[in-house]
């Protein structure tokens, strides 16, 4: 076994050496973005737009969750960590220990709509009701003015930034109940909700279509105005984190500040999120 590993390690080391030597020969630049599936649509749109404008730059986008994005940034395996939540203290400390200084760039705002099946007659819930549903205290739609159906609550996994935001903004310290299902992405939440009449879930604004129904919360529905002025209660910014502020004028700098341009703005709106600036 030892021998085998030694061989593999040797082989890998040789390959690494080649990689280092071949590095400067490679034309163009590779920018690796990793992290949130919620920020994914924006990151993908930005990457393609930027690559079209700057041939020779290769931008790759991975969607593995905010937590993994943060880890990749501190392991220096990505240049941009897409995150749908802010970095945690522990992540900041861990990053600082490895010599990475995370800098946050807010790219867009998100309303975090609460989704139900369109056949559900419920139109509005209060934050307290949503909390109690996810805690498992409210178990039937009848209790909140809906049909007589046992509620199926669907949540994102704990690696997700959307989960953290939901936990903070809705649960407020209460624990999500045992009967809640956990799924790995925004798209999976939508698929679960669109196929389950009794389901309730939450996802980024870009993932809402006419197969699911977004509820209004405390009587306010998520829109550009209500998210921006903070009246929609479950809103949050979306981030791209870089290691230090990127060198001005570099590809990385232009990529993460694309959200401030008119084109970036229009892309954010088209994907369904809310731009931070207005044109």
């Amino acid at each position, binding site marked *: 076994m030892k021998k*085998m590993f030694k061989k593999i390690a040797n082989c890998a080391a040789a390959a690494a050496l080649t990689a280092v030597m071949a590095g400067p020969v490679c034309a163009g630049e590779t920018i690796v973005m990793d992290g949130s599936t919620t920020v994914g649509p924006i*990151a993908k749109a930005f990457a393609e737009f930027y690559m079209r404008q700057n041939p020779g730059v290769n931008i790759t986008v991975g969607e593995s969750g905010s937590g993994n994005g943060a880890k990749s940034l501190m392991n220096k395996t990505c240049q941009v960590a897409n995150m749908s939540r802010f970095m945690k203290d522990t992540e900041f400390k861990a990053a600082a220990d490895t010599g990475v200084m995370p800098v946050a760039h807010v790219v867009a705002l998100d309303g975090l709509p609460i989704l139900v099946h369109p056949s559900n007659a419920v139109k509005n819930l209060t934050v307290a009701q949503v909390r109690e549903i996810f805690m498992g205290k409210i178990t039937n739609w009848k209790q909140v003015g809906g049909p007589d159906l046992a509620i199926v609550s669907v949540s994102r996994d704990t690696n997700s930034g959307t989960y953290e935001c939901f936990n903070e903004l809705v649960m407020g310290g209460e624990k999500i109940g045992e009967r809640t299902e956990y799924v790995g992405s925004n798209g999976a939440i939508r698929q679960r909700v669109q196929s389950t009449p009794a389901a309730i879930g939450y996802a980024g604004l870009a993932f809402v279509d006419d197969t699911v129904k977004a509820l209004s919360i405390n009587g306010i529905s998520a829109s550009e105005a209500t998210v921006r002025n903070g009246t929609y209660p479950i809103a949050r910014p979306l981030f791209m984190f870089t290691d230090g502020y990127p060198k001005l004028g570099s590809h990385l700098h232009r990529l993460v500040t694309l959200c401030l341009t008119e084109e970036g703005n229009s892309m954010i709106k088209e994907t369904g999120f809310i731009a931070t600036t207005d044109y």
Partner: protein
Amino acid sequence: MGFFSILVMAAALILILYPIISRGLSAYIFRATSEHRRVQFTEFGIGSAQEIERETAEVTAARQPVFDMIVAHEKDLKAELQEAVDQVHALAAAEGGFLQRSLERRLKRAHADASVEEYLTVLTDVRKSLEGQFDRERFTDVITLITERKQRVEVETKKLTEMKHALRDLLGPLPGDRITELLRSHYGQTRWDRCLHYQDKFLYRYEWDYSNPELSGLKMRTPRVEDFRGTDLEPAFAYVRDNLEAMMQPRLTLYWQFLTTDSRDAHFFGGIWPEVLGTFYLTIGAMLFAIPIGVIAAIYLCEYARPTKTVSLLRSCISTLAGVPSIVFGLFGLAFFLNTISVSESKSVLAGSLTLALMILPTVIRASEEAILAVPFTYKEAALGLGAGRWRTVLTVILPAALPGILTGIVISMGRAAGETAPIIFTAAVSVGLALSPLQTLNSPTPALPWNIYNLCTEHEAVDEIRHVQFGMVFTLVALVLMLNIIAIALRARISRKLRG
């Protein structure tokens, strides 16, 4: 009994393969609309300019009646508002002074070419400024007129906006629309099946009826034409129902470029070349690492190692390794290749290949071992008897004789390497990226078929729009693995034939 089991297996195979092939092929062969050809021409330079121009002209001519009806309807709506605007004009002229100037300035925006929305904002502004006057009682008549007209037109405009939205989903941007950045808003539906879906959404409005609070809502389908009874738009719906073919010009197309072009706007348009190439690189890379190490290890175990306890332990370790779930290899690859010895700065094809190589190594070793052990002992004795050294015997007698068996192991593991998702999630795969050059594989991550199939089906923001891409990828992956296997099997057959002389 044997026949029965074969029958069951064949049935299962057909059950699995049939949807893959039939739905997967629909990514390659489908009825493509003129929008598809326009995408191909503008984005990829495929097709002749004249042909596209001619077709665009035809299609535009077929669509024009609908656009004209919209314009006529908007004109009607504007005419209704115009009356209020005229009243304000008259009022302004009668008032004179500052109020006249302020009103006229606002009204200037409500010119003949302005949109209905523009008219509505102007009237809102005017009403606000009239209501702000200290002697607003004098303007009550005008204010009431504005309010009443505005209300009626706003209801109509809302219906019109919905209808235009549905039309845009079907045909692409309408004349006068601002062209935005994302490509998906530049074109209409490229596939005829999607066209029919959106035609239905254009012709009918789907709403949920919650009238019975005890039960779940019911999906209600109302013809959209009901919203526009008696207006200029009424014939538009019958027109779209009957003339969609002329508006979209569907033609059965073999879209082989699906394999060879890259994707645009997160797989909304274009093909899957970067994914195919990525899978290819990863598989080849894994084989490059796994075959030499695996075969050498097998030679060592069979020919050199003495049958001690350590060696038998080693053997059982290798067997155990073959049963380790692939996600464990993925995490190991992330922890070891990327975070500990950093073979590359980020995820990369190199790191992914090394991880995949580790995963398939046990299979390669075991298969090679079996093949080497199956070589008759007499071969070895003959070679040794002729005075060949041990290494020479292995190289010239045993390995060639064992080659077919070794190749079998390689074939099996190659298919596995191409199809595995878990090991490459953390080490190599991304959802969007360019096709790489061989040199770039050393430090760049790549999209790869297995991962992108998973990504498209769970994480993509518009899964239902691009199901065909997903099925196309599945089909391509299956075909790719099959092709690799066939090549290897053919190679193997050739070698065994040669050996038999």
